[in-house]
C-alpha cells in the first residue's frame, strides 16, 4: 500500500460513541453497524490491496435519511465515504478510519418503467444487470455492461461513469442517464434532469457522472433503455502481429463500420483464456480480435462479410464467423473469462485501465514487454480495441516479498506511458486511490485546482470521499483566493475594434 490516506482526525475519533448514537437516531434498527466484526466486510472494495476499517457503517433506506446523515456529518465535520456494491477497482469506496461508510445497498427498488418514454427510474442500489432484466420482457435493455454487471450497482456506475464492451456503439453511463436525485453534503436534495433530454442550465448530471462519489450521493437514477438488437454475430480473427490487428481495427472503422463490440487479446491472455474455457481460440497467434455486429440480420450478415474481407486483407491467419447463438457466446466466453483465467495462472494479478489513441497500440505493447522484463513480472493484455481502452493484467504473487510493490510500479509506468502517447490514466475504472498520485502526469496544477474549486461548490469542507482522485488537498478558501494585478492593458498588440 503506497498511497497515503488523509490522517485520521483524533477529535472526531474521540467522539465516536456520540456520533454513532446520533446516526442511530437518524437510521434506526440495524442500519448502523459499529462492531468491528460486522464492519469487516466493508474494509475494502475491488482494489483489495488497500484496507481500512471505517469508523462506522450506515445503511440508510430513504432519501430523507441520506439527507439527514449528510447534514449531520456536514455540521459535525465528519467525513463520509459512499459505497454501492464495493466493486470499484480503483479504491473509490475505500473507507476512512475517521469516516462514516455510507452504504447504499438498501436502495434496491425499481421505481418506474416507462416504455413510452424509453426510461427506467431505479434506486442506486439496483444492480446493472437487474435493470436490463426488468425490461427484458418487452425486448428492451440498459446498454452499458461493465464486466461486473451481476454485482455492480447503478449508483456506482454513475459515480464511476462505467463502460463495458459495447460502449463504442452505445456509449458509456454518461450517455445513457437522463436524470437523478442527488443529495449534497449539506443535506440539500436536488433533482437533475428527468425523462427529457439535456439540462435546463448547467449540466450537473454530466459532471456528477464519473465524479467518484466526491460531489454528492445519488438516491435515484433515471436511465435510458434501448430496444435490444434484432440479432448479433461475431467474428474471431487471429493475427501473427499486433500491428496487423491494429491495422484491421483502423480499417474497419475507416470503412464506416462501428461494431457493437470489438475486443483484442494478446498471446498470454489468449492462452490463459483458452486453457480455462476451451473457446476454440487459435494458440499460434499474437493477437486475437472478436468483432461483433448487431442489428437486423440483413445488416449483420452484410457487414460481417465486409469485416472478414478487411481482416483477410490485413493478413489475418484465422477468421471465423459465428453461425449460431451458441457459437457467438462461445467466442465471447473466453474474453469474458479472461480475468479469472489469468487468475488461474498466477496467485495474484493487478488489473490496469488506461486509454490510448488506438494507433499507438503496437508501440505500447512493445514498451510493456520491455517493462515486463525490467520488473520481472508477466503481463497479459485485453483491450477494448474500438475505443482504445487497455486492460493490462500484471501477474504477481503477494506472498513474495516486494512483488506487490513491483506490480504497482509497473502499473504506474504503464499509465504514464498511456499519457505520454496521448492517452489518459483511466478509461473506465476511475482514479480513486489507485491512480490519485499519478494525476500530475496528466494535469497541471491549474487544471487540478479548477477541478477542486468545482468540488468546493458542492462540498465546501471537503468531507465527501476525501483522499480520492486529488493528490493534494487544498482548503476551499485558499483555492478561491485571487491574485489580481491591477494596471494597464498588458497587450498593446492585441487587435481591438
Amino acid at each position, binding site marked *: 500500500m503506497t498511497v497515503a490516506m488523509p490522517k485520521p482526525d483524533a477529535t472526531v475519533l474521540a467522539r465516536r460513541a456520540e456520533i454513532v448514537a446520533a446516526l442511530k437516531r437518524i437510521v434506526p434498527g440495524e442500519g448502523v453497524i459499529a462492531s468491528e466484526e460486522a464492519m469487516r466486510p466493508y474494509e475494502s472494495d475491488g482494489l483489495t490491496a488497500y484496507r481500512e476499517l471505517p469508523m462506522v457503517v450506515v445503511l440508510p433506506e430513504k432519501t430523507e435519511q441520506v439527507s439527514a446523515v449528510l447534514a449531520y456529518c456536514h455540521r459535525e465535520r465528519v467525513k463520509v465515504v459512499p459505497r454501492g456494491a464495493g466493486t470499484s477497482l480503483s479504491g473509490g469506496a475505500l473507507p476512512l478510519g475517521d469516516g462514516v461508510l455510507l452504504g447504499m445497498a438498501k436502495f434496491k427498488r425499481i421505481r418506474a418503467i*416507462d416504455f413510452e418514454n424509453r426510461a427506467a427510474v431505479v434506486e442506486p442500489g439496483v444492480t446493472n444487470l437487474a435493470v436490463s432484466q426488468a425490461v427484458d420482457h418487452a425486448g428492451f435493455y440498459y446498454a452499458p455492461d461493465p464486466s461486473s454487471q451481476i454485482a455492480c450497482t447503478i449508483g456506482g456506475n454513475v459515480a464511476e461513469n462505467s463502460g463495458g464492451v459495447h460502449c463504442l456503439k452505445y456509449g458509456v453511463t454518461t450517455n445513457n442517464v437522463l436524470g437523478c436525485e442527488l443529495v*449534497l453534503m449539506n443535506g440539500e436534495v436536488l433533482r437533475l434532469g428527468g425523462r427529457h433530454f439535456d439540462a435546463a442550465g448547467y449540466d450537473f448530471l454530466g459532471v456528477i457522472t464519473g465524479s467518484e462519489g466526491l460531489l454528492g450521493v445519488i438516491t435515484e437514477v433515471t436511465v435510458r433503455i434501448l430496444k435490444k438488437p434484432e440479432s448479433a454475430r461475431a467474428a474471431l480473427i487471429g493475427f501473427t502481429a499486433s500491428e496487423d490487428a491494429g491495422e484491421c481495427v483502423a480499417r474497419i472503422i475507416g470503412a464506416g463500420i462501428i461494431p457493437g463490440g470489438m475486443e483484442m487479446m494478446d498471446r498470454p491472455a489468449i492462452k490463459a483464456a483458452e486453457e480455462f474455457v476451451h473457446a476454440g481460440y487459435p494458440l499460434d497467434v499474437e493477437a486475437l480480435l472478436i468483432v461483433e455486429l448487431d442489428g437486423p440480420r440483413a445488416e449483420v450478415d452484410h457487414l460481417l462479410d465486409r469485416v472478414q474481407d478487411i481482416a483477410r486483407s490485413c493478413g489475418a491467419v484465422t477468421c471465423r464467423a459465428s453461425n449460431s447463438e451458441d457459437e457467438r457466446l462461445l467466442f465471447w466466453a473466453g474474453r469474458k473469462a479472461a480475468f479469472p483465467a489469468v487468475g488461474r495462472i498466477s496467485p495474484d494479478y493487478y488489473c490496469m485501465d488506461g486509454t490510448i489513441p488506438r494507433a499507438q497500440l503496437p508501440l505500447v505493447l512493445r514498451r510493456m514487454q520491455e517493462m515486463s522484463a525490467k520488473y520481472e513480472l508477466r503481463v497479459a493484455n485485453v483491450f477494448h480495441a474500438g475505443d482504445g481502452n487497455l486492460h493490462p493484467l500484471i501477474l504477481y504473487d503477494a506472498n513474495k516479498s516486494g512483488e506487490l510493490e513491483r506490480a504497482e510500479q509497473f502499473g504506474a509506468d504503464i499509465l504514464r506511458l498511456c499519457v505520454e502517447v496521448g492517452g489518459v490514466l483511466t478509461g473506465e475504472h476511475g482514479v480513486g486511490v489507485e491512480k490519485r498520485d499519478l494525476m500530475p502526469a496528466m494535469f497541471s496544477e*491549474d487544471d487540478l485546482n479548477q*477541478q477542486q474549486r468545482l468540488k468546493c461548490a458542492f462540498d465546501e469542507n471537503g468531507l465527501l470521499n476525501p483522499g480520492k482522485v486529488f493528490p493534494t488537498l487544498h482548503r476551499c478558501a485558499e483555492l478561491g483566493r485571487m491574485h489580481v494585478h491591477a494596471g494597464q492593458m498588458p497587450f498593446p498588440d*492585441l487587435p481591438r475594434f
Partner: protein
Amino acid sequence: MTETLKPRDGAEVEQAIKWAVAGGKTLEIVGRGSKRRIGRAAQWDMTLDLSGLSAVTLYEPAELVLSAKAGTPLAEIETLLAANGQELAFEPMDYGPLLGGAAGAATIGGVLSSNLSGPRRIKAGAARDHFLGVSAVSGRGETFKSGGRVVKNVTGYDLCKLLAGSWGTLAAMTDVTVKTLPRAETEQTILVLGLDDAAVGELMTAVMGSFADASAAAHVPAAPALRIAETAAAGDAVTAFRLEGVVPSVSHRKAVLEGVAARYGSIGTLDEASSRAFWRAVRDVAPFAASGSAGARDLWRISTAPSHGAEIGRALIQQAAAETLYDWAGGLVWAALPPSDDAGAGLVRSTVANKGGHATLIRAPAALRAAVDVFEPEAPALAALSRRVRESFDPRGVLNPGRIWVGV
C-alpha cells in the same frame, strides 16, 4: 458601440481575461455571433471575439477524433468530415436563419457552448456526448484543460459536460476535441400523412419500440409542413421517420416501419436527397425562420418527455394560438407564439412545469429578453449550486454575466 478584443491565440485570450478581471470589466464572449441573440439581453463592457482562433489542429478519421481551435467555423469542419465520409453525429442545428442572421455562421466553440444537437439527438446524443476534451480560460484568467483526445476517459471530473451548454459563463474555450463518426451509407424517410395528436403519440411509441431503429422522428403539423419543400405537396400534417445505414439494412427496416405504420395512415417516402433536405429543414426549424410567415412570432424551445410533447403543444395552440413543430419523437417542441407582452412566458412556464422538462425563449425582442426569464428558472437549492459553480470558475462575474440568469 462596444469595443471588441480579438485575440489570436489562447495566450492572448488569457491576457484579455486577466486584464478584464483586474479592471473590473465584463466581457461578452462570441465566436462569429450566430447565436448572439439567444439569452437574456444584458450589457457587457467589451466583446471578446474568439473567431481569430480558427484552425483544425488534428483530424484522425480512423481514431474518430478531431481537434480544432474554438473559433473554427462549423462549416469548415463539416466539409472536412464529409470529405472523409464522416460527420458530427449529433447533427448540430444552425440558428442563423431562425434568428434573422446568415446560415452557416456557427463556430465549433459556439456549438459546444450551447450544447446544440439536431434530430439525431434521440439516437446519437447531443454535443455534450461527443465533446472529448477542452482547453479553456476561466473567469479567473487561468488556462485549464479537461478530458483528452480518446473516447473513453474518466480521469478527473468531466468539465466538458459542464462547459457544454454553459453559454460562455464559466470559461472561454480556446481548443476543443470532438468525437467524429462515420456518415451513414444511405438514408430514407418514411412519411405518414394526416395524423391527429393521439395517433401521432401512439405511432411514435410503436415505431421507437420497434426494430425500425429510426435515427430521427418528427411530427410537422400541416401549416409548417407546407413551408418545407419536400412536404409541401402533401398538403397535410406529416409524421416522419428517418432510417439510416447500409442499403440492405435500410430496406429491411423500411419494411418493418411500414408494417408498424400502415394502419395509421397513408405512407410516403423521401429518397436520400429529399430526406437530407427535409431533416435539415426540421433541424433548423426552417418553417419558423425569421424571414418566413412565422418570423415575427416569439419562439420557444421545449424539451420534455416524448409522451408529453403533444399535450404541451395542444395547450399552447389552444390558449395562445401557437404554431408548433415536434422533433425527438415528441420530446422537443418548437412553439411559435404571436407577439405578446411576456412572449407567452407565463403560459409556457406553467404548462411545462406541469409536465416536466424545460423551456427556453429562443427568439423574442431584446426588451422582452431583458424582462422575462429566457432560460428555465431553477428551484432555490439548484439555483444556489449554479451560483456557487459559476463562482468557482468566474468569481468576479467577468464572462457573459447575466446571459443565463440574473446575477449569475
